């Protein structure tokens, strides 16, 4: 049985009943009815709560005339995401900035929360990156269907020239199906490997040797969150109608 973190233990102590009820509504049974909450579920919810609290603290401090430090930090993040969306998707992609930004911030906080001693990254467990990848895949397909209509969207898989359509269509379908797999495995394996490498080196020289690996893990966490959001933007850009056609 997986060791419970203190957050998970709290949830299992007080909310085990509602969790079992919710799972049985969905037709699933937990392996151990005394511990229906998994570590990654508890950590995910904690990450979401932290983000909500952070933005709730930000909102009253926003000001046009005298922006504070908090506002400057978030303006940096927003300008960065806005600039990336403009570069990658173009001005037509601005309505979807909320989705890209949410993915980026959730994955970023999810990656970084593992550095706090008694907490774990939810992105270290397969279901969480898979959930983000599934959301991305469903999102860009829905955007494509909404913007182009379903027949034109399916036709865009055939590529730029009609006499290569027989080749392009299967290739495009397979590469689209490989996208959730690659998004999931990239994020999951990076976080899982980072944690394991830190643990492995902590077994050799306990307090000092993990330090450079934890620094690398911070950098990799930032980078992986950025790459996930960037790839989502690229997929949405592909799904949107291109003016040169």
């Amino acid at each position: 049985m997986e060791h419970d973190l203190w957050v998970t233990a709290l949830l299992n102590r007080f909310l085990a009943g509602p969790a079992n009820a919710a799972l049985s509504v969905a037709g699933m049974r937990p392996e151990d009815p005394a511990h229906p909450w998994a570590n990654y579920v508890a950590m995910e919810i904690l990450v979401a709560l932290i983000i909500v609290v952070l933005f709730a603290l930000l909102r009253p401090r926003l000001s046009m005339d005298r922006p504070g430090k908090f506002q400057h930090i978030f303006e940096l993040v927003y300008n960065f995401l806005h600039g990336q969306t403009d570069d990658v998707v173009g001005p037509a992609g601005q309505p979807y900035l909320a989705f890209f930004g949410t993915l980026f911030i959730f994955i970023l906080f999810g990656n970084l929360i593992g550095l706090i001693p008694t907490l774990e990254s939810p992105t270290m467990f397969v279901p969480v990156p898979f959930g983000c990848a599934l959301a991305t895949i469903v999102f860009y397909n829905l955007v494509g269907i909404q913007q182009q209509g379903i027949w034109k969207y399916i036709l865009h898989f055939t590529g730029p020239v009609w006499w290569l359509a027989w080749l392009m269509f299967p290739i495009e379908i397979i590469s689209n199906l490989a996208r959730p797999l690659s998004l999931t495995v990239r994020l999951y394996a990076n976080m899982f490997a980072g944690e394991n490498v830190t643990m492995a080196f902590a077994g050799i020289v306990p307090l000092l040797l993990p330090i450079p690996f934890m620094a690398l893990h911070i950098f990799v966490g930032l980078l992986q969150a950025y790459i996930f959001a960037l790839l989502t933007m690229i997929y949405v850009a592909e799904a949107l109608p291109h003016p040169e056609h």
Partner: protein
Amino acid sequence: MKTKLFLLLAAALVLASPMFAQGGAAPAADNHHWIWIASGFSMAIASGLCGLAQGKAVAAACDAMGRNPGAAAAIRFALILGLVLIESLALYTFAIIFLKIS
């Protein structure tokens, strides 16, 4: 319009709940010791080849930045993107190893 999009997205995500019912038993064959040797070699080969590829990417990026310092931001972006995609190939091997050594 946006509400409909979000509602469709939420419905599709709820439909994904059977994913949690995954289970998988790795069959323990008689010659399962080969898994240890094979995983060591495969990870080493994957890491070595990805190291070579990333070295080529970094070398090309440094050359280009030296030739055209004004384009450094665009080159750096392409470099980071390329490095991450190559890195993920080595990590697919890592993921398979951890799935098989269960």
